[in-house]
């Protein structure tokens, strides 16, 4: 089943790539650089999904004390941090030619950066505890605190300052851009969600094998 998921992901990413370069139109002002959006946006959105899954799995772990839930949280944390890191990197590469800078302390950049360090801390905490049961408990608590902190971070950073273009996909009134952009974006979005699921499935398997080997 994981294998099928892997193949689906590969096909999705390939179709996404073809659509991003072949189907999607060349942006009028930014030129080809804008095509990085088809990677940048899916990465960030998938990382939000990852952190959401992490929070849910953390709650499930605390309620049912099921090691499987903890492994899902652990894997989601790792993939989420990877995706957010890549999202920041692709954003930087996109920002240099269009905004003229690699990095700026704009509201949304800042809140994503905070998310990145927050979940890096989560992985650090996990790595510093030897007892797997305690690591699971503490990580679950941190996962819940971090998830509840996300809206607070967003509000505070938004009020603090707000250069980034407003969200184009999920905003009040729905998507108003051209559908020639929408479809390549949606396909890539789906492909990256599949990639997330595939990575998590693989990682959970490795974590289970590690736990069994240690027991």
């Amino acid at each position, binding site marked *: 089943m994981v294998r099928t998921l892997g193949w689906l992901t590969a096909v999705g990413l390939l179709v996404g790539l073809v659509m991003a370069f072949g189907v999607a139109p060349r942006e009028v002002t930014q030129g080809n650089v804008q095509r990085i959006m088809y990677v940048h946006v899916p990465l960030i959105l998938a990382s939000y999904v990852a952190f959401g899954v992490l929070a849910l799995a953390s709650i499930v772990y605390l309620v049912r004390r099921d090691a499987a839930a903890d492994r899902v949280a652990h894997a989601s944390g790792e993939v989420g941090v990877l995706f957010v890191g890549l999202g920041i990197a692709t954003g930087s590469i996109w920002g240099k030619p269009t905004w003229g800078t690699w990095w700026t302390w704009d509201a949304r950049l800042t809140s994503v950066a905070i998310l990145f*360090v927050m979940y890096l801390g989560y992985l650090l*905490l996990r790595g*510093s505890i030897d007892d797997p049961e305690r690591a699971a408990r503490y990580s679950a608590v941190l996962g819940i*605190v971090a998830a*509840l902190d996300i809206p607070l971070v967003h509000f505070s950073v938004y009020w603090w300052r707000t250069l980034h273009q407003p969200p184009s996909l999920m905003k009040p009134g729905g998507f108003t851009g051209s559908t020639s952009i929408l479809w390549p974006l949606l396909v890539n979005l789906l492909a990256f969600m599949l990639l997330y699921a595939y990575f998590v499935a693989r990682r959970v398997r490795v974590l289970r094998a590690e736990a069994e080997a240690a027991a």
Partner: protein
Amino acid sequence: MSWARRALAVAWKDLAVERRSKETLNALVFFSLLLLFVFQFTLGSDRERLAAVLPGVLWLGFVLSALLALGRTFLVEREHDCWEGLLLAPGDKSAIYLGKLVGNLALMLLVETLVLALFIVFFDIDLGRAMPGLLVVMLLGTLGLAAVGTLFAAMTANVRARELLFPVLLLPVQVPVLLATVKATEGLLLGEPLAAVAHWVKLLVAADTVYVIVSLLTFDVVLEG
């Protein structure tokens, strides 16, 4: 004993230990004094520049002393082998959290008041009308710091590289509190009324509520073993 009485007992114990030993307090007061030197040396004596960065520097001082103070929350029990005693306390462990939180809050507010007084004297600041508003922001900000700090201190008490991990976990989570307190303090020091920074105060209240409730609910899990 009722839940509130048990919480009070823990707070009372911590404050009594601190009053007699002054272990943390002495070092913290000295540390805050040193911070003033550091700020003076690094920022120079340009008064205008100092006034511009004052809200940030003030909260930097509060946060640095909070990191030191809060990180030690459960070390009293660790160092004197009373950890098991704490764990054996009957009933819901969230009472222990509340007690520790109250103790921490008292200690930090004491140190912060002192830092503020030192700032007023050494940097010759006129707080004037900003004082009541500033006290509200200090109280709310410190509660937010202490609420998460107390929870994380319990988590990092038994962990490798505890001194490093504690700030690394606490600082990102505390970004909303930091931004809100610094921005509110900035407004107040510019002579704005508390109402002008009400959105920041509301954010602090929301953050404090979330932090305290989630900590009370999860503390049992942290102290399990």
